[in-house]
């Protein structure tokens, strides 16, 4: 079985917009930060009721239900937003570079560093209710999910074969028909695979976000995440284990009941001219397909809704003429739009300056602390990556070269990658505390939890993709072990390994925020690091510190992406691509 789309974090590989856009986007982000903080501070005096989290196992189904609803709402929002965003970006050349620039930067920033300001702002906007926190959590899950979905949809639209577009034009498809018959089907496979990654990321954020402490205030929502965290804080192992069990159960069920049928179903959207010999199968999908009711009724309802619309569209002016493919969509923007643009620009400038002024309160020791923290976190993240790679490459290759084992392990690794590492953190923490060790090594171990599965999964896929004739050549010419690895295996798995590493590095940065600063059984465990600074600053309400730490993390991630990962990606696409 060949895995056509490894779990991947999509990366903008070709940057064709000026630095100016990057700067502008950074400015806008600063401004947004300032806006959120100031609303938050303004409203902070208002009381917010705290929901007590029960630790009895009986409430677990209800909590699980709450968490799933949160996930579902966030996912639907992300999907809708991603499709709209991708669509607008792909069809409006004037704003396309801006929108892709925003995507590139925002998907690099670890979501969790935005947690404090977002919660503050949301709570402030809807004071006196749980709804504010609810919305903050949903919004955070949303930001964690949306970018790779949007990028996937956008790049699918951009890669639709030209003749397919021409066919839809010359046969005078309406926008509606084009969307459902060409664009959505073409993007479907990418959307399904990216949804798997997105939802996994969503669980990761959800578990962490449901409970959140700031100063002496607790923001809590009933849900699996807060259940697990409360159990950790109380040292209640039984509750902890059952909470984690519930999360794993949900993840496995999602995989079996949702993703596998979806993957098998999306197979029909594969853009291939010949039939593939092997494909993903799903008993659930077979069952669904066998049902006569499901086979006919949804299609009939859909058609009865669609037919009048199609007939109406066919009469409209839009579908009576053939629209040129090279139609320049750039009309002159109206003066009102210009004015609005200028106003927004001015507001952004002002807010960005204000945010920058906020940084004045920082002292030199603060800055030194942050720099030290940045260095420590950087080392920790990369150590976690290296350790993951060091064990997953040999293991993954061994598994990948053995098809029978691979068939069993591959889906398991995929599920493991989907289980949020945040759920396992507490177990590890309790273990560490019992041992009496600090977080120094512990935090790396915590990051490992989040990173290794992505790499393992992708390495297996890479090893399986190495053609057997190449392996036979290596055997025929009696390659030494060293030659085998340097000439065949490493180059062969390189693109896959890279995809895994990029995804894992994103996960590791995200994990740093929680791995470096934790509370177990009433203690606070802490090591030097940016993540710890962010948490500490949130606890003490030092917004300047929080802002600068977030800027540092974002800068490092963006720089790493631009300088290292993107270059390697291009190398993978050109030199190490194994053509089928």
């Amino acid at each position, binding site marked *: 079985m060949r895995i056509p789309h490894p779990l991947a974090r999509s990366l903008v590989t070709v940057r064709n917009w000026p630095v100016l856009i990057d700067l502008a986007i950074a400015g806008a982000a600063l401004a947004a930060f300032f806006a959120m903080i100031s609303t938050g501070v303004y409203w902070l005096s208002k009381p917010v009721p705290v929901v007590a989290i029960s630790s009895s196992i009986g409430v677990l189904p209800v909590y699980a239900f709450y968490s799933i609803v949160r996930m579902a709402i966030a996912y639907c929002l992300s999907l809708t937003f991603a499709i709209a965003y991708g669509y607008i970006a792909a069809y409006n050349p004037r704003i396309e570079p801006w929108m892709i620039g925003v995507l590139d930067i925002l998907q690099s920033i670890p979501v969790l560093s935005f947690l404090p300001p977002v919660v503050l702002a949301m709570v402030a906007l809807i004071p006196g209710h749980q709804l504010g926190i609810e919305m903050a959590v949903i919004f955070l899950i949303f930001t964690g999910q949306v970018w790779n979905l949007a990028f996937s949809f956008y790049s699918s639209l951009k890669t639709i*074969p030209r*003749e*397919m577009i*021409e*066919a839809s*034009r*010359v*046969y*005078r*498809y*309406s926008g509606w*028909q084009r969307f459902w*018959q*060409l664009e959505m*089907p073409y993007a479907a496979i990418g959307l399904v695979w990216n949804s798997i990654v997105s939802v996994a990321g969503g669980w990761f954020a959800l578990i962490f976000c449901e409970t959140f402490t700031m100063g002496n205030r607790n923001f809590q929502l009933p849900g699996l995440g807060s259940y697990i965290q409360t159990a950790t804080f109380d040292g209640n192992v039984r509750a902890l284990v059952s909470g984690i069990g519930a999360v794993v159960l949900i993840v496995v069920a999602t995989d079996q009941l949702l993703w596998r049928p979806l993957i098998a179903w999306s197979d*029909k*959207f*594969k*853009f*291939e*001219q*010949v*039939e593939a010999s092997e494909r993903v199968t799903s008993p659930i999908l077979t069952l669904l397909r066998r049902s006569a009711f499901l086979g006919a009724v949804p299609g009939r309802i859909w*058609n009865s809704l669609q*037919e009048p619309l*199609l*007939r*109406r*569209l*066919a*009469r409209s002016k839009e*579908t*009576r*003429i*053939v629209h*040129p*493919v*090279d*139609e320049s969509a750039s009309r002159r923007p109206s003066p009102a739009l210009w004015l609005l643009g200028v106003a927004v620009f001015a507001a952004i400038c002002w807010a960005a300056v204000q945010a920058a002024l906020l940084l004045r309160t920082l002292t030199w020791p603060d800055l030194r602390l942050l720099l030290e923290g940045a260095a420590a976190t950087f080392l920790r993240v990369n150590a976690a990556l290296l350790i993951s790679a060091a064990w997953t490459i040999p293991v993954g290759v061994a598994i990948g070269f053995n098809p029978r084992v691979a068939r069993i392990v591959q889906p398991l690794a995929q599920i493991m990658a989907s289980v949020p590492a945040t759920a396992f953190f507490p177990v590890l923490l309790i273990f560490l505390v019992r041992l009496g060790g600090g977080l120094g090594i512990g935090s790396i171990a915590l990051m490992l939890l989040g990173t290794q599965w992505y790499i393992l999964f992708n390495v297996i896929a890479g090893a399986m993709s190495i053609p057997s004739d190449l392996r036979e050549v290596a055997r025929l010419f009696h390659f030494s072990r060293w030659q085998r690895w340097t000439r065949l295996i490493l180059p062969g798995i390189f693109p896959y390994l890279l995809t895994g590493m990029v995804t894992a590095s994103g996960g590791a940065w995200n994990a740093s925020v929680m791995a470096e600063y934790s509370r177990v059984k009433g203690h606070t465990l802490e090591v030097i690091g940016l993540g710890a600074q962010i948490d500490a600053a949130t606890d003490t309400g030092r917004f300047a510190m929080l802002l600068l730490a977030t800027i540092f993390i974002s800068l490092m991630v963006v720089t790493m992406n631009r300088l290292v990962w993107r270059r390697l990606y291009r190398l993978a696409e050109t030199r190490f691509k194994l053509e089928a």
Partner: protein
Amino acid sequence: MQNTNTLKEKWMPNRAAEAIIRAEKIEKYYQQPNESRIQVISATDLSIQPGEILALLGPSGSGKSTMLRMLSGLSTPSAGQVFWHGSPIREAEVNVSIVFQSFALFPWLTVLENVAAPLQARGVSPAERRERSLRMLDTVGLDGFEAAYPKELSGGMKQRVGFARALVVEPEVLFMDEPFSALDVLTADNLRSELLELWTKKTMPTRAVFLVTHNIEEAVLLADRIIVLGRNPGHIRTDFRVKLPHPRDRKSATFTQLVDYIYKVLTRPDVAPAEAPAQAAGPRAPEQKQRYQMLPHTRPGGIAGLLELLLDKGGRDDMYRLADDLSFEIDDLLPIVEAAQMLGFLHVEEGDAVITAEGTEFANSEILRQKELFRDAAMAHVLLLRQIRRALETKSDNTVPEDFFLDMLDEQFSEEESLRQMETAVAWGRYAELFDYDAGRRRFVLPDSQEEEAAAGEEAH
């Protein structure tokens, strides 16, 4: 002279009122950031007339596909205008289809859904959609495949779906962008002849076909009119009619002449193209509306002499060397070659005269047999001789006045030329003993012996 002029006018593309699509000085260029522009197609006039298959030939990079896209409204010219029935194509309700090289079928739709999709876009009701699509699938020979997905089909069948999808909307102009080049040779051949059948039998409601191809034979096989593009930037090098009736014989001399001609135009981009060769009607389609071939003014004896010489040389020789051996000027030799070619005794290949099987038999036979062979060949290939003979056979007195045929020739040739044609026809007919000519009465008569036979036949009826 006047006659030839009106004919010429008919072939020329500039009759704007009739054209379905007319392009006026269309250009395509891409503006470079540094103010310079890359010219892809220089200002070009072109029009698509009803009733014709127009083939656009050209080397790669000559902008064939770009031209197709501008004419179909898929691409906007950088300068100039395209008109659909006289109104700008951007605002007109254009009814065209395109058959793509890559088929461009939607892999997630079944064959039937693929074909029905364009009807869906036009708001046709589901029942009618299904019925029309099924009928069209039947027409292209895909009956029973409606539930299959494109990836389950072979390349040829996929392109059939492509044709069905294109034809189901009953387009006025059917555009084809190298529709056969992704298929293997046999499949392509098959599809081509089926397409031609649909076209000649008017099974498809299409009024004009525009074919982009880089395959010279394909163009000559299908097209009524061929435009050859040159490159750097794209421009029209030559635009001529193909007058061979369908179905065309690839092995016929006129066919190969045309192919050679286009090949020469394409391979010598720096030389201004010569006139397209005059085309004799092929032997395969005598029933079409007939025009007289121009008979080369030569005597049958000359033809026999040439064939015997050619046989001595092994059946094939360069024409210049032949002329040399006979101490002829090439201009004197050419009518003889042409005559032999017309009768199917030889054909011309890259400047070589090559004797055919019939020619070999002719050269090897004694005089009476030669006459017989000549008679058969003349009846098969030369319209005028056949008509005279048929007329004589059907008339009860077995004579026909010469004026009758002269009048018909006059429609096509100048008066002087008609007389010379008649002179040649008489010489050939006498030699072949097809008929006799009574110079005093200026009438054709059946030869004596055959007159009796004909009379006997008449009585038997």
